[in-house]
């Protein structure tokens, strides 16, 4: 899969290992980029395990409300459904950004990344609003094991999205300055991988935390 994402870069060096044995600086640079993409896939595996552990914790503790409020009582699904659609759309727009990049359209790439980031920011805004609402209703991280697990799992996802936002803004600056090069191409590919990954994680959050827990 790592190769698929660097299609444009991979052609020249085929299946060779190691940097530089075939000579030519240009080729080496491409090889470096494909190494980084592969490394990022491995990082995503570790992130899967990280979220997996948080999900397991949530599932174990989902009934431990300690006589306090339950999720079903306090959570309003309407906002969640809205934010789900916003995040799914942002995944689509980040895909469009990659397509624009492959066409070599720098302005289109930055534009679509900006739209993606805006949608991401809207998602975070809704999540923060939801958290504030819950705290006002009397559910904080210290209320019970259920709420500890809830805030930690949902919050960790939100933190990931926020990190992605900062990263995306930094990347837009780099793109406007340096244009589409092998290095920035790899960076856009990686952040779009990351963004899709967070989308997939959210689908699980939505299903397990919200749909199964609230409905």
């Amino acid at each position, binding site marked *: 899969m790592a190769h698929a994402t660097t299609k444009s870069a991979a052609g020249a060096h085929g299946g060779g290992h190691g940097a*530089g044995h075939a000579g030519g600086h240009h080729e080496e640079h491409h090889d470096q980029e494909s190494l980084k993409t*592969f490394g990022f896939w491995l990082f995503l595996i570790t992130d899967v395990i990280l979220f997996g*552990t948080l999900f397991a914790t949530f599932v174990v503790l989902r009934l431990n409300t300690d006589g306090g409020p339950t999720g079903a009582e306090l959570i309003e699904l309407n906002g969640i459904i809205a934010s789900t659609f916003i995040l799914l759309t942002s995944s689509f727009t980040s895909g469009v950004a990659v397509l624009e990049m492959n066409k070599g359209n720098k302005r289109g790439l930055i534009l679509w990344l900006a739209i993606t980031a805006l949608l991401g920011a809207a998602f975070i805004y809704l999540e923060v609003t939801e958290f504030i609402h819950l705290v006002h209703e009397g559910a904080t991280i210290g*209320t019970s094991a259920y709420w500890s697990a809830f805030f930690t799992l949902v919050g960790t996802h939100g933190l990931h999205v926020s990190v992605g936002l900062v990263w995306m803004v930094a990347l837009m600056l780099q793109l406007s300055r340096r244009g589409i090069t092998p290095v920035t191409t790899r960076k856009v590919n990686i952040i779009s991988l990351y963004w899709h990954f967070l989308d997939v994680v959210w689908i699980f959050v939505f299903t397990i935390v919200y749909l199964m827990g609230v409905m």
Partner: protein
Amino acid sequence: MLDKIKDFASEFFVTGDPLVLGAQVSIGLSIVAIIFALTFFKKWKWLWTEWLTSVDHKKIGIMYIIASILMLFRGGVDALLMRVQLAAPQLDFLHAEHYNQIFTTHGVIMILFMAMPLMFGLFNIVVPLQIGARDVAFPFLNSLSFWMFFFGAMLFNVSFVIGGSPDAGWLAYPPLSELSGSPGLGQDFYIWGIQISGIGSLATGINFIVTILKMRAPGMKLMQMPMFVWSVLSSCITIIFAFPILTVTLFLLFLDRYLGAHFFTLDGGGNPMMYINLIWMWGHPEVYIVVLPAFGIFSEVVSAFSKKKLFGYKSMVFALMSISFFSFFTWAHHFFTMGSGADVNAFFAITTMLIAIPTGVKVFNWLFTMYRGRITFSTPMMWAVAFIPCFVVGGMTGVMLSVAPADFQFHNSYFLIAHFHQVLIGGVVFGYFAGLYYWWPKMFGFRLHEGIGKWAFWFWNIGFYVCFMPQYALGLMGMTRRVNAYDFDMGWQPLNVVSTVGAFLMGLAFIFQVWQIAHSIKFYKKEKDGDAWDGRTLEWSIPSPAPLYNFARLPRVTSQDDWWERKQRRAKGEPEEPLAPLEPIHMPKNSGIPFIMSVCWFTAGFGFVWDWKWMIVLGLAGVIACMLARSFSYDTDYYIPVDEIERTEAALRGTK
């Protein structure tokens, strides 16, 4: 004002213990001495440009090894203090609280800050050389991993003199490790020290998987890799699946303590048993993470010193990989007594027994490699040979522990203590010593004195058996772990005294090793040939120590033990491939960001421990700034020109 400072200092520093006071004074003095020496000899710039900012895997490896030996010293002193207390509990050498702190830090330091960095040090030095690469896949990340480990370890160690040591056991089970059970700061130092270094370990796991899978010399197929490389691969795969669990578990414990969450508390619906499950889902694979590379080292050493190809290469690969897989399905054997029921216990008992099978396969492979070999008993080989009986006994007692009904008797007794020290010392420590002795000439370009090394070897081995064999018996006599006192009429004292004598023999062995290194430096004799042991794998085909770029020309590999085969062909007088022309070599530039970023993590961690908000913000802002600085820097590598390579090679090989 003065009173305020006094109040603060008495809270900030650990006070009222003569041992700690001694440590504080000596730490203070050594810091002053180091700063003075660096300033006096004008070495600050050298330290910064040659070491702190280096992304060279060989230098990073050496720094890992130095740090781990320092940690071995501290963990060893902890062990000796405990043994003194247990030999004569009547003397009240360590009071209960101090004893709790010492067994906690002994465990954490030996596993996480001694075994892990020693392992990473060997990964760093050996793997790129064995696969014919010029560096690891991500040299910058590699440097970051090291500094994260280093500052994590420092954060943990500083608790000894500032704030107070953790004392809830090396895995910090709740509810004891919760705020209700451990209100002091020690537990917070524990969480942040391990958390920061754990992130570094995770990154190393990713780094070496990519290095091994993508950066092998042209022609080297997976099934032609040296066995050590296979063991590193299996260990790293285990790391990337296990370490995120540790990160989450410690993070949840932190939330409990810092924000009043209820994951593992007794009130609020928390579940302490969940922590114990989670921590062992990491903890059990962790012991395989550290022992698998030791298996790889034994494979290299046994084959090199028997002058034979490794017996059963494929079965060895299969054994390594299946161990790394099965290691994830045995965690509950650490708490058969928890009450999960017969079915759960039976499952974990069987998986635990299963894992003994691939391990047994390896033992036979090593024995058959030695069979009819031309064996030379140099120090690395002695450690490898001593390992086999030791590990077999340790493994068999492990199988005894895996029998769930019987475990109710052994659980948390000295029988268990003896078992895991036997596999961790007999397996991991002996293995890494073998590796350290084997690759020492490659790292530094000179050999260690064999005679003193043999003294150290015998003291270690005899000391080991004298120390731990009595502990099996003590366990069966009912002595449980983590007790600091017992009555004379329990009848445990004679065996405890014997055990303490053994521990001091090992302490003596360590002194022999220090002497061995000092002696070998004093009578420094440059290694002329890069091939110190008439080795089989690629690292022996280049000069010692290896030049910055390792291989002037990347080797073309045609078989397993390629260097050995090449030497055989050369001896037969077969024509060699003509040398390809040199080309400029692409290298990463040094960077100060990993060091600075790790300092920022340390700052943030220290802030979290004391709950000083300004410090947390400062530290985390620094971390983010470092990440952005790295993201925006594009000028990260350079080329070594051909004439410089030619000059270096000529100087190293003494041809001109």
